């Protein structure tokens, strides 16, 4: 080696050696049970500052729970709202660097992927010690279970329903108290609204460029028909089944007829639930939440709710929303558990969740004073028991990814009138993605 290069070379070598010694990601630190509960099933409330992340799609409900907890406890939670589209990226960047917060929620469909990669602390013994655990809806807990260990609890229950504008229904000559009970009736109601020919008013709206929006709102139609959209292992796509093809052709017809708001074609998700509260959409699939819905353009009494129906009838819903767990990097597990135990307790579920017009996570509290007072909330709580939560390890990569294979399939089917052969071909790309 030339003399004048020796020192820089040695310096570089030292640095490389340092990098090699300190490099590599940390091993998963989800031990089999992060200790047994600290005596009391409620955890510890000793004034610890806790950090928590949640995605923007659940901001209002997350903030309400955190605010109520902070008001009534010594522990204080600092909540960070992460833009929904960036959530997976933000968590993925923090995880290998051991920078996850104490608590973080996850879209329930991401839980199989994240629990299998050791992002959460094992909470099995703590969850099993909850006195009300038998009354907690199991869908989220099942989705948060990996190889027999439980890592998450239901945080925000997000169901999908059809919401319709009763004032527009009445104006169009439809009975506002007799909402659609089949997909065809949904389409006819949308057409009737469109026939009002009012400027800015459209029959329906949907996220035409949003993968997550449409699994959330179209799959229940297939489930109501008893037709699954994936195999049990989540490695084969059945989005080419008869029910889904009927969904595609129905929406394709509505698009062709101009019944769907034109912004639907480019709607990638950020604003898809912003159109119904403007009072200009007749009927559309929406998340099951009335929180913040009513405004000067849409009176509360004009917000109608009905379960998503199948092709020939039946009802179903996508039991989605967020699960929540304690991260592998938390050093305050007992304190973080205090929030989780409180969150599912009666006071939080009734006085915060139900009072805010949202679905409770406990079946024994479904008939609470707030839900009973509003028949729409009764619908929410009732259909929660009839819905499904799909399972796939590569759910996000397949259905939520803007470049994933799900979006091209439904866009081709709805906006380009793709034939059966094309749908089969595109469905196969979804299977390839699921099984990679």
């Amino acid at each position, binding site marked *: 080696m030339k003399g004048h290069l020796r020192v820089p070379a040695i310096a570089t070598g030292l640095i*490389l050696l340092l990098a090699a010694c300190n490099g590599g990601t940390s*091993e998963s630190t989800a031990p089999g049970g992060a200790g047994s509960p600290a005596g009391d099933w409620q955890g510890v409330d000793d004034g610890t500052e806790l950090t928590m992340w949640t995605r923007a799609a659940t901001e209002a409900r997350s903030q309400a729970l955190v605010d109520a907890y902070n008001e009534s406890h010594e522990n204080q939670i600092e909540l960070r709202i992460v833009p929904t589209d960036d959530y997976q990226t933000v968590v993925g960047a923090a995880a290998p660097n051991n920078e996850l917060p104490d608590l973080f929620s996850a879209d329930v469909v991401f839980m199989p992927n994240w629990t299998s990669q*050791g992002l959460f602390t094992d909470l099995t013994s703590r969850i099993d010690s909850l006195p009300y655990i038998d009354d907690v809806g199991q869908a989220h807990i099942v989705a948060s279970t990996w190889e027999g260990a439980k890592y998450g609890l239901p945080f925000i229950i997000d169901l999908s329903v059809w919401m319709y504008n009763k004032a527009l229904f009445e104006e169009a000559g439809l009975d506002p108290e007799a909402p659609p009970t089949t997909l065809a009736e949904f389409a006819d109601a949308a057409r009737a609204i469109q026939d009002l020919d009012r400027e800015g008013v459209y029959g329906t709206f949907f996220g035409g460029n949003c993968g997550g929006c449409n699994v959330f709102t179209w799959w229940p139609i297939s489930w109501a028909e008893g037709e699954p959209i994936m195999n049990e292992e989540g490695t084969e796509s059945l989005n080419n089944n008869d029910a889904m093809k009927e969904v595609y052709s129905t929406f394709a017809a509505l698009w062709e007829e101009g019944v769907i708001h034109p912004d639907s*074609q480019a709607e990638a998700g950020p604003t898809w639930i912003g159109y119904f509260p403007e009072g200009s959409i007749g009927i559309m699939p929406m998340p099951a939440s009335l929180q913040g819905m009513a405004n000067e353009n849409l009176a509360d009494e004009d917000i109608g709710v009905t379960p998503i129906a199948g092709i020939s009838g039946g009802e179903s819903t996508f039991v989605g929303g967020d699960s929540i767990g304690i991260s592998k990097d938390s050093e305050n597990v007992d304190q973080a558990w205090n929030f989780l135990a409180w969150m599912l307790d009666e006071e939080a579920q009734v006085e915060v969740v139900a009072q805010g017009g949202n679905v409770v996570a406990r079946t024994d509290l479904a008939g609470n004073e707030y839900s009973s007072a509003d028949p729409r909330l009764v619908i929410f709580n009732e259909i929660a028991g009839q819905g499904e939560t799909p399972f796939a390890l590569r759910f996000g990569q397949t259905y939520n990814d803007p470049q994933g294979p799900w979006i*091209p399939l439904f866009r081709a089917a709805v906006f380009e009138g793709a034939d059966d052969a094309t749908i089969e071909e595109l469905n196969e790309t979804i299977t390839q993605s699921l099984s990679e």
Partner: protein
Amino acid sequence: MNAISDRLAPGRLLGPEGWRRRRTLIGMGYALPTAIMVAVFFIVPLLLVVQMSASDWTLLSGDRGLNVPENYADLGSGRLFWPAVEFTIRYTLIVTVLLIALGLLMALVVQESGRWSGMLRTVFLLPLAVGLAAASLLFWGFYSNSIGPLNPMLQGAGLIESPISFLGTPTNALMSTVFLIVWKFAGFYMLILLVGLQSIPRDIYESAALDGAGRWSTFRHITLPLLRPALALSLILAVTGSLLAFDQFFLLTKGGPDNTTVTIVQLIYREAFQLQDLGKAAAISIVLLVALLALNALWFRSLRKPATE
């Protein structure tokens, strides 16, 4: 085989030869902090990326062993890879031509000192003060059909009858993004070319005028040839920057509609953070790096003036 200790031995640092050695050591001492910075922030990460590209390395579970040459061999078979390469090259060609042409035009306009040139220079340079991500979000708002002011303004002025879907078709999405980039960076290229213009000696123009050369002839035979270094710099910056385009497409179009505006760097991002495959993402990065190095090497070689004309 001189050890450092031999070099530093007192006897060897005395006398004329010792003085030269002292100078060498002092020089190395000055260069060492920079060398460490370059090593830590460039060389080490680069070597890590090379290692990643040869490994089955996931985002959440880390290095799971060698995976070469699969990470590279699988690249071409990805459904988005070649369309992303084609789109990135097409976008680069469009943006490069527009940025340099507009930059040159703006530089020619403002090169003369006058009442308006100072103000014009400021106006042309202002967009540079806005970060690219912020500008992309701003333009997303402008172009939005639900909250944007652009369509209502154009309809109000009678320029269009129905709203334009600025991001809803492949052509519109591309041109809307090109408009953002040209708005933001034309001033930067104006600056480079302005410096180039101002370095051309005045007496050459005077001589040309005396010889009866017209404006176009002067521009073609004097300005452009003498502007060659500045044009070359502008070209390589525009091409490199465009080949690495990411922020504007990630925020404005998200690669849509229908994956028609996916760039190579977006693919890298997707592999790493959506598909959680750092190995494949690193492989795409290395391929892109090699392509850029080759392009720059060819470019600088072609810019070298011939020894004799």
